């Protein structure tokens, strides 16, 4: 008893002492103020729209403790280090040391004193959060989670911090050094170690996935328990070490022995928990590796096609017991001696029968090899029944992806969500085709060819039994009899999904489609927010579906669409073989609980905000109109375009594309395959499912970055399509490359067949081949018969060759013409491809009224200055009006005739060296009517490309060999000390106005000069210690006029400007100011200063110089009073 009494006593007075320290008071008052405001801002009815957090009720304690824990971990270090220093400093401590208590009691008392103080603070802050939680109109309260997060996040962090601080203070004996060491570790955790090695180093649980679902709980309790116990036990072990090292004569030998035993026990606990944490991580890697190796062994084997599958499944808590009766067909050229299937490796096959005859089978990992005892010839069919039982191993699902919160972040605000691919628990089940919960005749990943996919369109039937009170959900309409749920989808499907849970069901018939909503009790918050739409919902939804069908030129192929609520942890990784994510299944979308991760799902707050905006703008809208607007925005962003990405360090935080319905219009109903070009289906899919979404604009929109098309062309400049695929690119790279390649291929089809002809025919062809897999060799034959050309021969270069065409455009003219008493408009321009490979570009013409409010910018166009529009507002977009193919070194004059007055032509160079790849040319200076002039709507081959304006001129651009950026040595002292240089840095970036590069960074903008790549380099203004140079051989001595190119981007941000102020005086100044060129000539070196604001947009004369030596040189330094210095191109023109 005296053991506890002593601990309690020491703790009581330690808490009291710390409570009175200014450091703690400052922290707690600051923390209380900040957290109170945060709670009001995030969770209260008057707070902002942070639906992701509001939807998950456990996010209240999680957010509060997550943020508090970071501060707390640091303050604890300070206070813990302070206690030993204080004991040493205070002479009055000695009287306490002579009291009868063991060192362990004293140290534990001190530890508990600090812990309870912080827990008290946590409790106060949590109660503020709880109050907001209770008064929030949209949130439910998860009381248990308050305690859970306190124990999970705070206690282990504090104990571990205390333990480490105590021991370090004993060893180092210097509070400042101890504090710095521990602060360093905390920073290391937050910025470097947080996700590494399966979170084993993340002592603050900074990045540990801890979001708790209202449906499925944490879903990773084992990992959480192990990881947190690791730090709890380690902390206690270190506290024991402190007690042993403590500078006070121990009370007795027995106490030392007890302390030592506790140290050993805590260490063993920490080792076990650490091993458990590591094992979760390594088992995941091992399982994935095993799946890949098994797949590697079978990727060249032939699988049958499953035509029908009738699955009977019993849900038995954490396992299932099932049988699948399959009808298979051999569509391979070779006979099949074995029937190969893939089944989740944790599902044990109990038997295979064929016609009441048991078949022998082998199991290799997830592969089932059934031995039918006969050969199945091409075109023959067979049937068999596979019985199996067990659990589901989720690591099987995406074997090429590791669980890394760094490379695949999945978060709500700062809260990391555990990624789950399947659920099989007593109360909830979610099994998607990706988990292979039923036999699948194909592999989930082809290691040698990750873009390959085998798609079977199978007619499924499913019969499910689960425990009473749970509802089964799958594709198709449900029938319930004798405790069984039966599903018989009307259409063949690419895969079957099963969810079982305490679902509530709503249904709505709109048009020919029945919409089914499966949600959990209390999660239908949207009913209240969107109550005014109740009556018009069917029309609204069928209207949205009609728009989708129009966009994709195809009908929605299923009779139902189920929206199924699933735990927020359900997450699918992107695949190389398809752009379709597992959140969207045939006739089904798996939506996160309470739509938590979806942008714009906080309808209530959005509607309130909209109303406030209306009042501000004196607008009058009815409630119904507002709700309609909010709902349509949500639907548009979630299911149609998915354009609202949030990025951090270039990685998408949220992925609205996960729920896009585009896959229903291609991937779930059509399939093209090729052994030679396995990526073909992904290419078709990317092109055909591409939503009509606006281009991604640059950050804050004032400095446009490269488009996805441009980025893809940059990848393809370095490697062929085949090589890009082989390099297994991450993130959006693959999608970008597939898009470019797909666009190129379909432009080729359209160029050969005619745009409209091809589009109409291909739409009919796709509909005629719904739910069938087509070999592209057959497609080639069909196109050849229909249109008289074969695309197959093009595919070899398309796939394997990396050379890109490069296009130059010049001599744009536009004139009014009279044709048959009608005023029409004739546009002509010349296009050249100077490269050794052929290429395609398409042209679209924008017509309409004056483009109100647009800015104009001048660009170099074939040596001439033309003004381009940088904003397209006020114009009507039209479809592609012409596709042009240019053979190597070919030049054509292109003619277009429009009925409406052209405003702009846009040339998309598709797969080419041109950057930017889309060139927008405004059509100004339209010459007046000329009678009886012949129309020219077509192409005319020219003998040679237009020559330069002046044959005596030499131009060296920043992309040319004569340009040098010198040594890209860092100028920031720390970077220089670390030997950082930027020679390898070639990627184009946008011009940023903050954190300016201290090296010369290439940047692409339409206003800059270039043959194909309109680029320049820029750096931060400095003292002249960095320079770039342009050097060229001089053909003949003499006087030369030397010019520098100054591109003036119209969207460039101005410093000190008043927003919207058009007054020149108030527009602020440009970030570029004086530019210092050094011109080398016979007279020596002369420095010429060019003032950016006064410079011409284009070539600016530096002066006339005599050059007799072999080479001429101009240097630009970073000396400037401006924020940035931009260098582009230099031109030498021989003077007469």
């Amino acid at each position: 008893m005296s053991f506890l009494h002593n601990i309690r006593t020491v703790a009581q007075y330690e808490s009291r002492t710390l409570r009175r320290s200014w450091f703690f008071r400052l922290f707690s008052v600051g923390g209380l103020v900040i957290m109170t405001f945060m709670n009001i801002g995030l969770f209260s009815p008057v707070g902002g729209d942070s639906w992701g957090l509001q939807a998950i009720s456990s996010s209240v304690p999680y957010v509060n403790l997550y943020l508090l824990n970071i501060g707390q971990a640091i303050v604890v270090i300070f206070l813990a280090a302070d206690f030993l220093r204080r004991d040493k400093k205070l002479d009055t401590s000695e009287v306490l040391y002579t009291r009868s208590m063991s060192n362990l009691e004293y140290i534990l008392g001190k530890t508990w004193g600090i812990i309870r103080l912080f827990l008290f603070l946590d409790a106060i802050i949590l109660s503020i959060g709880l109050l907001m939680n209770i008064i929030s109109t949209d949130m439910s309260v998860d009381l248990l989670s308050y305690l859970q997060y306190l124990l999970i996040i705070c206690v282990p962090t504090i104990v571990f911090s205390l333990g480490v601080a105590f021991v370090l203070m004993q060893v180092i004996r210097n509070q400042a050094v101890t504090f710095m060491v521990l602060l360093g570790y905390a920073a290391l955790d937050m910025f470097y170690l947080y996700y590494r090695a399966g979170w084993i180093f993340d002592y603050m649980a900074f990045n540990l996935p801890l979001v708790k679902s209202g449906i499925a709980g944490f879903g990773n309790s084992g990992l959480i328990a192990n990881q947190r116990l690791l730090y709890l036990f380690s902390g206690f072990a270190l506290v024991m070490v402190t007690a042993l090292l403590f500078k006070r004569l121990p009370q007795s030998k027995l106490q030392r022995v007890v302390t030592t035993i506790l140290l050993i026990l805590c260490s063993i606990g920490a080792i076990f928990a650490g091993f458990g944490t590591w094992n979760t991580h390594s088992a995941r890697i091992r399982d994935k590796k095993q799946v890949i190796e098994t797949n590697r062994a079978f990727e060249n084997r032939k699988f049958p096609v499953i035509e029908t599958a009738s699955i009977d499944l019993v849900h038995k808590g954490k396992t299932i017991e099932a049988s699948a009766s399959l009808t298979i067909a051999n569509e391979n050229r070779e006979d099949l001696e074995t029937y190969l299937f893939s089944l989740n490796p944790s599902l044990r096959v109990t038997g295979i029968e064929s016609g009441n005859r048991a078949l022998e089978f082998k199991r290799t990992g997830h592969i089932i090899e059934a031995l039918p005892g006969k050969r199945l010839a091409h075109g023959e069919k067979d049937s068999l029944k596979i019985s199996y039982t067990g659990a589901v191993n989720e690591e099987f699902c995406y074997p090429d992806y590791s669980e890394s919160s760094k490379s695949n972040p999945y978060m709500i605000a700062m809260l990391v969500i555990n990624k789950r691919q399947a659920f099989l628990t007593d109360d909830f089940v979610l099994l998607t085709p990706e988990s292979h919960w039923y036999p699948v005749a194909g592999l989930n990943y082809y290691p040698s060819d990750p873009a390959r996919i085998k798609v079977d369109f199978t007619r499924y039937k499913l019969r499910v039994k689960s425990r009473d009170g749970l509802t089964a959900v799958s594709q198709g309409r449900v029938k319930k009899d004798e405790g069984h749920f039966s599903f018989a989808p009307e259409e063949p499907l690419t895969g079957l999904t099963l969810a079982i849970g305490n679902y509530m069901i709503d249904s709505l018939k709109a048009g020919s489609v029945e919409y089914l909503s499966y949600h959990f009790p209390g999660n239908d918050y949207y009913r209240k927010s969107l109550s005014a739409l109740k009556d018009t919902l069917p029309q609204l939804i069928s209207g949205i579906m009609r728009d989708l069908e129009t966009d994709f030129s195809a009908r929605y192929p299923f009779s139902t669409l189920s929206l199924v609520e699933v735990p927020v942890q359900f997450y699918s990784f992107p695949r190389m073989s398809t752009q379709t994510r597992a959140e969207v299944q045939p006739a089904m979308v798996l939506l996160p609980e309470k739509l938590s991760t979806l942008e714009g799902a906080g309808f209530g707050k959005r509607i309130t905000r909209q109303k406030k905006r209306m009042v501000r703008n004196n607008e009058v809208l009815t409630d119904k109109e507002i709700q309609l607007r909010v709902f349509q925005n949500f639907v548009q962003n979630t299911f149609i375009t998915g354009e609202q990405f949030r990025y951090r360090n270039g990685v998408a935080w949220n992925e609205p594309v996960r729920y896009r319905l585009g896959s229903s219009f291609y991937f779930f109903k059509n399939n093209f395959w090729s052994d030679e070009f396995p990526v073909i289906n992904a290419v078709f899919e990317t092109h055909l499912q591409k939503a009509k979404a606006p281009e991604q604009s640059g950050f804050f929109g004032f400095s446009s970055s490269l488009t996805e098309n441009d980025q893809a062309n940059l990848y393809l400049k370095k490697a062929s399509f085949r090589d890009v695929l082989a390099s297994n690119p991450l993130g959006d790279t693959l999608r970008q490359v597939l898009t470019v390649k797909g666009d190129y291929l379909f432009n080729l089809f359209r160029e050969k067949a005619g745009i409209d002809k091809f589009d109409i025919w291909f739409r009919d062809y796709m509909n005629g081949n719904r739910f069938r897999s087509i070999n592209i060799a057959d497609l080639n034959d069909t196109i050849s018969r229909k249109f008289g050309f074969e695309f197959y021969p093009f595919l070899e270069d398309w796939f394997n060759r990396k050379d890109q065409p490069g296009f130059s455009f010049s001599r744009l003219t536009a004139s009014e013409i009279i044709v048959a008493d009608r005023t029409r408009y004739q546009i002509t321009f010349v296009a050249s491809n100077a490269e050794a490979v052929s290429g395609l570009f398409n042209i679209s013409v924008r017509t309409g009224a004056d483009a109100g409010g647009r800015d104009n910018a001048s660009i170099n166009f074939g040596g001439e200055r033309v003004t381009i529009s940088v904003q397209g507002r006020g114009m009507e977009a039209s479809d592609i009006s012409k596709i042009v193919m240019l053979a190597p070194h070919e030049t054509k004059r292109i003619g277009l005739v429009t009925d409406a007055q052209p405003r702009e032509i846009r040339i998309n160079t598709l797969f080419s060296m041109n950057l930017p790849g889309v060139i927008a040319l405004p059509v100004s200076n339209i010459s007046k009517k000329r009678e009886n002039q012949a129309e020219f709507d077509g192409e005319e081959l020219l003998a040679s490309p237009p020559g330069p304006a002046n044959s005596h001129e030499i131009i060296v651009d920043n992309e040319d060999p004569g340009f040098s950026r010198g040594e890209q040595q860092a100028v920031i002292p720390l970077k220089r000390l670390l030997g950082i240089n930027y020679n390898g840095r070639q990627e184009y970036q946008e011009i940023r106005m903050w954190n300016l590069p201290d090296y010369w960074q290439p940047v692409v903008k339409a206003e800059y000069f270039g043959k194909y790549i309109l680029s320049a380099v820029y750096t931060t203004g400095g003292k002249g210690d960095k320079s770039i140079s342009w050097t060229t051989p001089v053909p003949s001595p003499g006087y030369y006029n030397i010019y520098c190119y100054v591109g003036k981007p119209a969207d460039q941000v101005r410093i000190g400007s008043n927003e919207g102020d058009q007054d020149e005086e108030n527009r602020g100044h440009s970030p570029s100011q004086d530019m210092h060129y050094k011109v080398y000539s016979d007279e020596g070196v002369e420095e010429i200063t060019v003032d950016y604001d006064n410079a011409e947009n284009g070539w600016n004369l530096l002066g006339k110089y005599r050059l007799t030596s072999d080479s001429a040189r101009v240097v630009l330094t970073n000396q400037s009073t401006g924020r940035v210095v931009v260098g582009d191109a230099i031109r030498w023109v021989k003077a007469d």
Partner: protein
Amino acid sequence: MKIEILGLNKIYPNGNHALKDINLEFGTGMFGLLGPNGAGKSSLMRIMVTLMKPTSGTILVDGKDIQKNRKELRQMLGYLPQDFRFFTALKTWEFLDYSGALAGMKNRKLRVSEVDRLLDQVGLLEVRDRMANKLSGGMKRRLGIAQALIGNPRIIVVDEPTTGLDPDERIRFRNILSQLTQNDVTIILSTHIVGDISSTCQGMALLNRGEVVFSGSPENLVRNAGGHVFRLNLSTEQYESVKERYNIISTIPVDNGWEVQVVSDDPPGFNAIPVIPNIEDAYVYFMEHKIKATIID
């Protein structure tokens, strides 16, 4: 209760031999340790209260080695160190309550009552809610005394307890200790203020340079000095001469000169009158004559 100190040595890591073969024995009542600064008193105290280990030797309390039975010793111990100035952020009563709780007083009600009683006893009741750090030097000392007494310790070790106390407080403190000796308590008092010893201690030891140079009762110490303390009436010239040759204990200016007391083995002349020594005279005589003579021998 019997405390025996047997062959105790303490050598610090820097080679300082602080205690040299100390052998002492004393029982219930007050035992005084007298000696100049650096004599080793505090080292001995710190070993006695288990803050420090001896290099060799043992201290037995009722026959039990305190290094092997620290728990038992600490349960019966009250300690006031020489330096007692810096407190954590606790109020006066809180510090006392903390000490009381650690002294084994588990009943909160009784503890609070005892805290107030002791605060009253040491004259701090009025400042019970003042932060301990804000107390004056004397008050801190009194608080130290109170905390040493809380929990009814059977052994009280007080190191220089009256340093910084004014005469009234010193008397009050001595009285408190005297009262405690009535309750079967052993008090070990270390001091360099001779007056503290004379009024209260039954036994005492004189420490010098780590060695016990005298051990016995204060009366014995005084007896040893009998016949060696003289009073002289001197002119200024005589005074200068005497100052050179003898240890002057006290000097009082009188008409036409000085009245001084000196210690000396032999009468110093100048019509010296032998006086009865007090313990202070005895301490000076002992330190200046006996020890120096021993060293010279």
